[in-house]
């Protein structure tokens, strides 16, 4: 399969006001194949948006380069940009213009005009099911409708590659479902390559042919979902929320050594939240175990014997969340 996007040692460093620097992206190497949905998965602040911004030509890399369909984004940016569409996380539309006016304006900036532009706008309004609202101002639309116009604006030039930066943020489940279906349609029916960033594991799992997991500006794992989950083995993951009692190192050590099948135990103590620290999150114990359900009675018994209150228990099959947890020691939502 042909390569649509390739990055080599893509790096971005920002300077702070005090003269120090922060490395937002630390040398990312990627290869995205034509016609696949590639998801960049990672928590907020992992460097996903900066990476996608560099690949789309929005931000100049401090080091390295990216090619789109063989064109360098730094030295052949106009050629590269003609091959891509962009759906940012924000609603990048003019609120005082109608849906049609927005699409027509951005279409002109892609060099479309006349009947071609008008026809393309009609097609896209139908595609996102907003033809009947085309003359209404964007600021009268619901969040989900805005997202759909936002998506349509990224498709104006019928690009072979489209970037979508967390396109489902802040919308209702129904609109979210609609957008996810649209993304799959773009790949399946139009053969489009999709570079998708998200911090939601479920979205990455549902959509992606391949996933790159980012943390602290680095790709820490990349591959198909099967390839990634194999990295954490066949272990189940037991998520146990506990009371405020401290789970000490000794207890964790004992669980790992004495309970059959348990390979690893991670403990996240309760955190103070709220303005005055008046509230706290529950403590969470993550136990990796082969045949988790078999090990569960003994785990509960051990915790009970140590005086730890158990509030809930959940047994999870291996997934991307587990991969991330296994690789970073933190949950994606952290």
């Amino acid at each position, binding site marked *: 399969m042909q390569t649509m996007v390739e990055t080599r040692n893509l790096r971005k460093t920002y300077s702070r006001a005090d003269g120090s620097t922060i490395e937002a992206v630390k040398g990312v190497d990627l290869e995205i194949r034509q016609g696949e949905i590639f998801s960049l998965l990672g928590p907020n602040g992992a460097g996903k948006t900066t990476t996608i*911004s560099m690949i789309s030509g*929005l931000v100049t890399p401090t080091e390295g380069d990216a090619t789109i369909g063989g064109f360098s984004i730094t030295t052949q940016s106009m050629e590269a940009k003609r091959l891509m569409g*962009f759906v940012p996380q*924000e609603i*990048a539309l003019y609120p005082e213009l109608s849906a049609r006016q927005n699409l027509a304006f*951005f279409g002109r900036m892609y060099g479309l005009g006349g009947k071609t532009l008008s026809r393309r706008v009609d097609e896209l309004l139908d595609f996102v099911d907003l033809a009947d609202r085309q003359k209404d101002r964007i600021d009268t639309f619901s969040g989900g409708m805005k997202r759909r116009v936002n998506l349509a604006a990224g498709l104006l030039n019928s690009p072979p590659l489209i970037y979508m930066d967390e396109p489902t943020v802040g919308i209702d489940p129904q609109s979210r479902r609609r957008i996810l279906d649209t993304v799959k349609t773009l790949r399946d029916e139009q053969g489009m390559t999709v570079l998708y960033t998200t911090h939601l594991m479920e979205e990455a799992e549902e959509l992606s042919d391949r996933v790159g997991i980012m943390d602290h500006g680095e790709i820490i794992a990349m591959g198909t979902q099967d390839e990634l989950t194999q990295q954490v083995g066949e272990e189940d993951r037991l998520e146990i929320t506990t009371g405020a009692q401290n789970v000490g190192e000794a207890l964790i050590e004992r669980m790992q050594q004495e309970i059959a099948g348990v390979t690893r135990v991670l403990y996240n103590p309760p955190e103070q939240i709220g303005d005055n620290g008046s509230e706290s999150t529950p403590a969470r114990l993550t136990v990796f175990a082969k045949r988790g359900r078999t090990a569960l009675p003994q785990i509960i018994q051990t915790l009970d014997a140590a005086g730890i209150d158990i509030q809930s228990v959940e047994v999870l099959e291996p997934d991307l969340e587990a991969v991330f947890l296994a690789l970073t020691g933190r949950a994606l939502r952290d």
Partner: protein
Amino acid sequence: MRKILAFASKEIYTTFRDRNLMLLMFATPLVLSTIIGLAFGGIGDSELPDFADIPVAVVNLDEGVDLQEVIILPDQFANLDALPFDPDDLARVFNQAGIGPDQLVQDGAPLNFGDQLAAILLSQPVEGAGTTATQGFDLTEIGCSLLEESEAAGAASLAAGGNLDDLLDATAVDNADQARAAVDNGEFAAAVIIPPGFSRRIMPQFAFDEDLRIRTQVPDEDGAVEVYANNGQPISVRILHSVVAGVVNQFVRVSVALGATLETSVNSLAASIGRGEINLAAVDLSAPAAALQDLDATALEPLGCLITPGANNITVAHPPLEAIQEAPRFARTIVPIGASQAVFFALFTGVFGIQSLYEERKYWTLQRLIVSPTPKVFLLIGKLLGNLVTVFLQILILLAALTLVASVVIGEPTFIWGANTAAIVVVTLALALCVSGLGVFVVGLAKTPEQVNLFGPMINITLAVVGGSFGFALPEQAARFSLIYWGVDAFTQLANAQTDITVNLLALFAQGIVLFLLGAWLFKRRIDL
């Protein structure tokens, strides 16, 4: 180019669709101008305060010039000898004939433009521009075609044009310091101080080079008329300034035309001698003055007409004064007020129109544009072009709206900005360039939108204060630093049927271009994300 136009069109469209912006751009300046105009200009024939009888002190210190000293004929060919004369060697002709300024213009040919200006302001009968005619030779005998007709008609027109009784209450004062003190005390709205070198400045020396082409030599001394203003009466002062500028401009034209006519006359005279039309053999070279009397009057006609007051085609006309006097009071008032408000509010459009770039960045429309295959410089040009056109339209629409308001108040259709539509459009364009350039510069200079919000209005208000938008005027030297001054002055001049707005246009275009280029350079950084 299509992308630039698309971006500029979007800018203009979104601006004119914003109701809040419409209120700020149009309703506010219109309402303010109308209220102030009604307060100071009155409604129709009501007894509200008017700009009649503006108290003015007139100090005339002008020493005048002697025409004999002004005209320097060629004298650098003293060694040329025998006849016949070569028509091309005109210097030889003059030298042989012994003709010099003494013979052309007799001693005691004073010319005092200061007297005329003072007389006009004081509504006194205007004396002739020169009083030399009867000395030397009798010009009434010269067949100057304009002489008889213009003597009568010119005097009448000067008298009518010079009568500013309705507008000014002028008093002659001998001492400039006394006049300034009286203005400071509030006794006068302004003092018009005519300096000693006023006429010398207007009428520089006319010398001739070897080819008999004229060389004017402007004296170094300062001959500018000073209008010393009372800051509390800016509109009165502006009107007075307009009157003085109008008259002085006419005087300056006398000088320019005199130079051209002199050159023609001297050449014509020399050629006549050269062709033998004047019998030099009959000329007694020992008595050049007497000989001059015998010269063919036809040869001297151009000069004769030139130095005879009111008899040449360079009479002192007064359309500005008439225009001011004839315009309704409300129109006279609303022109400077409306123009200054229009420009002042356009300044906000200039700054905040450009500042919308920050909004575009905040809402990611700028990012979407950058990701499209559109060079950043197109976005920059589109943004600036959109702002420029918006400001241009804003000022133009405000001028039209103010005309409408004035027509309603006056009770009949009145185009208050003067008849020179092309000049009005050019001034508006120059102002738009300047205003938009300032906006680009301010936004380019600021590091954050918050800084623009702080410094933009500060700069705009400062320019408005300095430029006289708030009802009081700073000294003119200071006001010249404000683009509002140049714009309002240009509009006021055009409204008063004056067309000499070259300096205003130069000042506005120069400021506009410099600010635009500098601002664009700074502003480009804002697009680099």
